[in-house]
């Protein structure tokens, strides 16, 4: 088991390092001189030279990358070109805000999808299933900005309960942000649930047809007990990877949803960075998302082992 986790950790580190390298290369692909590109053609030669120094452009690319990695390991992601502040502290502040909605979205989305998936699976091909499956098909077919916009139409315009936009800055207290987190979190959890529900439904149908569930039923156990104790743990198992992928994908959804609500998190930071061509900020966020992806996958693997004793014994990866 330790060996398995260690091997997965190794693969995870390799993935993140390669991803950071790809992002670095992509951002170096700015045509022409990077400093001139960022500042525009009217920039004075002095300003260009200052930026060149700041970005270390006079050094070869591989050295810049290694220095960046060295700094990043110690939590130093360079200086933002737009605000002049340390990227690390800016990132931490926005990350806190994003975590507020992300944690809520993941908790709500998973609860949503587990319950709805089980209901759809148990009532296969009857009206609750048709309703839930239809809704998840629509959920899969609309982008996050549409979900968010419809929520604004419903809960900010028609029934004004929640604010449609956030006016707070990133350094607002949690208490100030509290009224604003519900709609973004709801939008994200709907987008998250759409995929997981379908996976969960398929999984529940498989498990309910299995011999041990039939046996449990024949032993006269109540439906509730059969579903909760016997079916659910086994139905969740194949869903774990889908959950992990969708949670990792949430980083992308966050960018869009935060933009709709002007919520001061990682997403709006990223969009501003794209407008300002703020390369250090962009690079830090892209690599952060790769870390989240890797961690989610690792968590799914470990959770799969927790739920399935057979995986624990052999210590061999089946993934």
């Amino acid at each position, binding site marked *: 088991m330790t060996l398995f986790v260690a091997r997965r950790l190794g*693969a995870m580190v*390799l*993935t*993140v*390092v*390669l*991803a950071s*390298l*790809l*992002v670095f290369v*992509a*951002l*170096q*692909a*700015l*045509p022409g001189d990077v400093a001139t590109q960022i500042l525009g053609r009217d920039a004075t030669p002095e300003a260009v030279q200052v930026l060149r120094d700041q970005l270390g452009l006079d050094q070869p690319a591989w050295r810049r990358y290694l220095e960046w990695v060295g700094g990043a390991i110690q939590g130093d992601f360079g200086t933002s070109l737009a605000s002049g502040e340390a990227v690390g502290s800016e990132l931490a502040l926005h990350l806190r805000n994003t975590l507020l909605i992300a944690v809520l979205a993941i908790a709500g989305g998973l609860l949503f999808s587990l319950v709805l998936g089980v209901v759809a699976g148990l009532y296969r091909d009857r009206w609750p299933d048709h309703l839930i499956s239809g809704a998840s*098909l*629509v959920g*899969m*077919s*609309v*982008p*996050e*900005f*549409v979900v968010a*916009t*419809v929520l*604004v*139409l419903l809960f900010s*315009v028609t029934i004004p309960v929640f604010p*449609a936009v956030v006016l707070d800055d990133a350094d607002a207290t949690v208490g100030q942000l509290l009224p604003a987190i519900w709609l973004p979190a709801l939008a994200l959890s709907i987008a998250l649930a759409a*995929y997981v529900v*379908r*996976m969960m439904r*398929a999984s529940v149908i498989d498990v309910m047809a299995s011999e041990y569930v039939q046996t449990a039923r024949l032993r006269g156990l109540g439906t509730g007990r059969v579903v909760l104790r016997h079916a659910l743990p086994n139905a969740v198992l*194949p869903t774990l*990877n*889908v959950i992990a*992928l*969708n949670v*990792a*994908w949430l*980083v*992308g*959804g966050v*960018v*869009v949803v935060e*933009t709709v609500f002007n919520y001061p998190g990682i997403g709006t930071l*990223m*969009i501003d*960075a*794209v407008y300002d*061509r703020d*390369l250090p900020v*962009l690079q830090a966020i*892209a690599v952060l*998302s*790769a870390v989240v*992806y*890797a961690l989610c996958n690792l968590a799914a693997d470990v959770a799969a082992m927790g739920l399935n004793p057979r995986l624990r014994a052999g210590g061999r990866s089946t993934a």
Partner: protein
Amino acid sequence: MTGSELTVAGTPAQGTLRTVWAGIRSSRAATIGLAIVALHVLVAIAAPLLTSYAPTQSVPAEALAGVSWDHLAGTDQYGRDVLTRVLHGGRFALVVCALSTVAAVGLGTVVGCFVALRGGWADNVVMRLVDSVLAVPAILALLVVVTALGTGTWVVVAAITIVYVPGVVRVVRAAAQSVVPLEYVTAARARGERRWSILRRELLPNVADVVAVELAMRASWAALLVSSLSFLGFGANPPTPDWGLMVAENRTALTVVPMATLAPIVALATFVVGLNLAADGLAKAWGIDRFRRDGR
């Protein structure tokens, strides 16, 4: 693999097409889905004939007019007819979506089959790269590319292609790996056939079903991605009518003319529902598990 008996029936190229056609015919969901998609394509092509307004013609006096017989979906802040813009609004998304999906699935299929056949270090290297590209969410990767190369139709097409190739490689490689150890591939190898011809004649017909489902699924994701990019302001450029961009523009007047925001949403949603129905139907018809695999 359900494609195998069909390759016996005809030449491989026909077999591939026939596999896909049979799959579409056998599934009601796929038929309905593709019909919806076809309708959207027709509307996008015939848009100028369906309306008496021009999509970029602004009439300031009629700005933000509500729903009426003259403007069935109201007008936007520049007095442009929303329905007209919705009818034209699929063009950018459809073109980008079609080009990038076909390019990504085509490229990914060839690479996926190749590494499955080749194995060894090439397989390892490619799969490591695939993993690391998949680690960055598509929309973030697109934003990085857009920052470096700027916006524009071709940049967006190229960027989506690059972002989607790794996912296709992984899926097709897995499908091809189950074909590679079979007798007829070994026989082809023993005959001394070249790798490229084995790939084309033995592997491709047998992964055709997986590739077709992948095509429909990728197209639906690409449509979502393009419209999200337009919504964020890095896709279609104003005054181009585009669903994602229209939602971004008309959203500011959500309280005044909600229909101006809802109309492009409905258009986009029905298009993607069509693609998803097609993907679902095909996957079901061929027994491919659409969800127990790596996603976007």
